[in-house]
């Protein structure tokens, strides 16, 4: 029942289009699209054609909007599709997402308020802005910007996989025999809509839609977590069935998975959780949502209410086991486990609501991610290197264009990578983005690191991480098949990202000693210690923030 042979699959597949579910899905999708375009008028500033407005929503969001925005940002199609799919495929190993999101909050509690303060004193829009200001190094800032762009693409791709899974189950994803254009047409349409309203409304669109998305998601989870176990005979039954199914030996000769992380899997489990937690707030999109908040305290308060989402993630993950128990037919693609489970278990109209939740849950973060990547490119590549005298209007225009290009890059990932383990999309980006941590977080606390050492450490981490990931094979492809490899020197299997990060730090520290001994130029630091603790109301920090673009009037 778990590895259905292809013949029966094809017989079972033509459930055709589920009309009611599709209608409900389309209804919500249209509603959200209209909202997306109208969002441009929400809390609109008089002067809106600059990056502060389009890219940070005017930096005016309070605790609750920030909460929704961050929640919409961090808990994505990943939550709904990839994590339960990972549990469905391998059991306990997929649950690392829960400790991962637990560790995120104490971590950001310590450094994000400092980033907020220094960014508001100096008008930084991106992490690269900060790195350039702190270390006086355009090269390092460029490295951080390019890493951000690169790492965002597989993450957006993960969202597209989520939408695609829903479309497949709805029966509009096209069968295996359809040609690629028909097959991907609905995805392309969803994608075009997303691109269009992001283009016109900027960060306001996802912030507004995030309310709808979270409302729907909470509703669906509460219903799913009560209704489905009752239908399946309780959690005892579910885990009993899961245990038996996971113990079955797969084609590789090993059991499919475990119900609790076994001794050989514990290093991987812990390093994935830690590495992912460290990486999350290096992503441009997390930073975008953070900097758009109104004050330092909004951020700290958010670290105490955001874990609500983690609880939700944990409950959702358990749906993976329910799909095992229910014998959900995934047609060889584990990503379909949850959408298919919903389709099988719920009445059509509610399945439609659930699909809408997943679909919109993918659109919101995809929009925020592409905006963040665009901010990054505009500020730190275009303005720093290509056209230093760009006007705010030009910046605005370039940012919008790049937000489109990044999405196209994401499509390329979807079309070339192994979708059956979509969770790797997120982990692959994590490997790269984690390498910017020494410069960013290190820089927030100390100026001890040398800028060239940071650059060298970054390069070593990037090269090692990419090569190691390239060397991982999966049953369906030779390269980039996973994100775990043996940790040199320890011999256990662990997350490549974390290993690369450790290498990165070692190189950075050693070279810093060397460069300091050689008296290599340190670069100028335009920040001062007081900048890192400043808050609204302090001298030099006002609620109306400095314009992000030099020479532009503040957009408020």
């Amino acid at each position: 029942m778990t590895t259905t042979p292809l013949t029966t699959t094809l017989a079972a597949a033509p459930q055709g289009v589920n009309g009611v579910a599709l209608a409900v899905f389309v209804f919500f999708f249209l509603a959200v699209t209209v909202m997306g375009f109208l969002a441009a008028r929400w809390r609109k500033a008089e002067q809106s054609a600059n990056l502060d407005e389009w890219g940070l929503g005017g930096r005016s969001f309070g605790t609750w909007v920030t909460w929704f925005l961050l929640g919409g940002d961090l808990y994505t199609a990943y939550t709904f599709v990839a994590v339960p799919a990972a549990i469905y495929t391998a059991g306990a190993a997929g649950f690392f997402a829960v400790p991962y999101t637990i560790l995120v909050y104490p971590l950001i509690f310590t450094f994000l308020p400092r980033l907020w303060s220094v960014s508001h004193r100096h008008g930084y829009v991106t992490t690269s802005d900060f790195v350039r200001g702190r270390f006086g190094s355009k090269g390092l800032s460029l490295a951080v910007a390019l890493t951000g762009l690169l790492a965002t693409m597989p993450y957006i791709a993960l969202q597209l996989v989520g939408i695609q899974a829903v479309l497949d189950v709805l029966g509009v994803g096209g069968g295996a025999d359809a040609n690629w254009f028909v097959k991907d047409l609905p995805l392309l349409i969803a994608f075009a809509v997303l691109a269009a309203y992001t283009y016109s409304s900027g960060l306001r669109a996802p912030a507004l839609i995030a309310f709808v998305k979270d409302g729907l998601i909470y509703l669906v989870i509460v219903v799913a977590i009560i209704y489905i176990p009752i239908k399946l005979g309780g959690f005892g039954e579910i885990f009993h069935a899961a245990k038996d199914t996971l113990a079955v030996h797969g084609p590789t000769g090993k059991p499919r998975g475990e119900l609790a992380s076994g001794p050989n899997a514990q290093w991987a489990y812990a390093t994935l959780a830690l590495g992912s937690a460290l990486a999350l707030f290096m992503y441009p999109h997390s930073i975008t949502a953070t900097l758009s908040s109104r004050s330092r305290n909004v951020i700290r308060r958010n670290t105490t209410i955001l874990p609500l989402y983690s609880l939700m993630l944990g409950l959702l993950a358990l749906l993976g086991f329910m799909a095992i128990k229910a014998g959900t037919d995934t047609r060889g693609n584990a990503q379909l486990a949850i959408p298919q489970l919903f389709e099988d278990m719920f009445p059509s109209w509610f399945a439609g609501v659930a699909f809408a939740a997943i679909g919109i849950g993918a659109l919101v973060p995809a929009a925020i991610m592409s905006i963040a990547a665009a901010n990054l490119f505009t500020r730190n590549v275009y303005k720093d290197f290509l056209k230093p005298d760009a006007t705010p209007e030009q910046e605005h225009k370039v940012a919008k264009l790049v937000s489109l290009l990044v999405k196209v890059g994401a499509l390329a990932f979807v079309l070339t990578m192994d979708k059956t383990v979509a969770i790797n999309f997120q982990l692959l980006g994590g490997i790269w983005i984690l390498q910017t941590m020494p410069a960013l977080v290190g820089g927030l606390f100390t100026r001890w690191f040398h800028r060239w050492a940071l650059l060298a450490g970054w390069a070593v981490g990037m090269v090692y991480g990419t090569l190691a990931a390239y060397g991982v094979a999966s049953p369906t492809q030779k390269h980039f098949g996973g994100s775990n490899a043996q940790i040199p020197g320890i011999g256990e299997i662990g997350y490549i990202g974390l290993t690369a990060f450790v290498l990165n730090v070692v190189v950075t520290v050693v070279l810093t000693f060397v460069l300091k001994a050689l008296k290599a130029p340190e670069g100028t630091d335009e920040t001062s210690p007081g900048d890192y603790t400043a808050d609204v109301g302090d001298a030099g920090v006002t609620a109306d923030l400095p314009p992000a673009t030099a020479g532009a009037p503040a957009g408020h």
Partner: protein
Amino acid sequence: MAEKAAPPDRRPVVTPTRVVAGLCLIAPFIAMLWVSSYARIEPTLIGIPFFYWYQMAWVLISTVLTSVAYKLVQREQRARKDGAA
């Protein structure tokens, strides 16, 4: 960490309040990264193996700990501000 006194506070960087707040923030790391301490099935809770409900319980525990850290830090900040004024 390596920061020397920001202008408003002439007080030490390490205070008892901050140590407690720090411990609150470190605790989840120790609990979650020590996988072997919770990698087992029994005892189950309404049929859910220990491995799962324990980690979900830590979502709540870490929320409480982070809130405590938040309150502590905030209280100290206020005290410092009043002292400086």
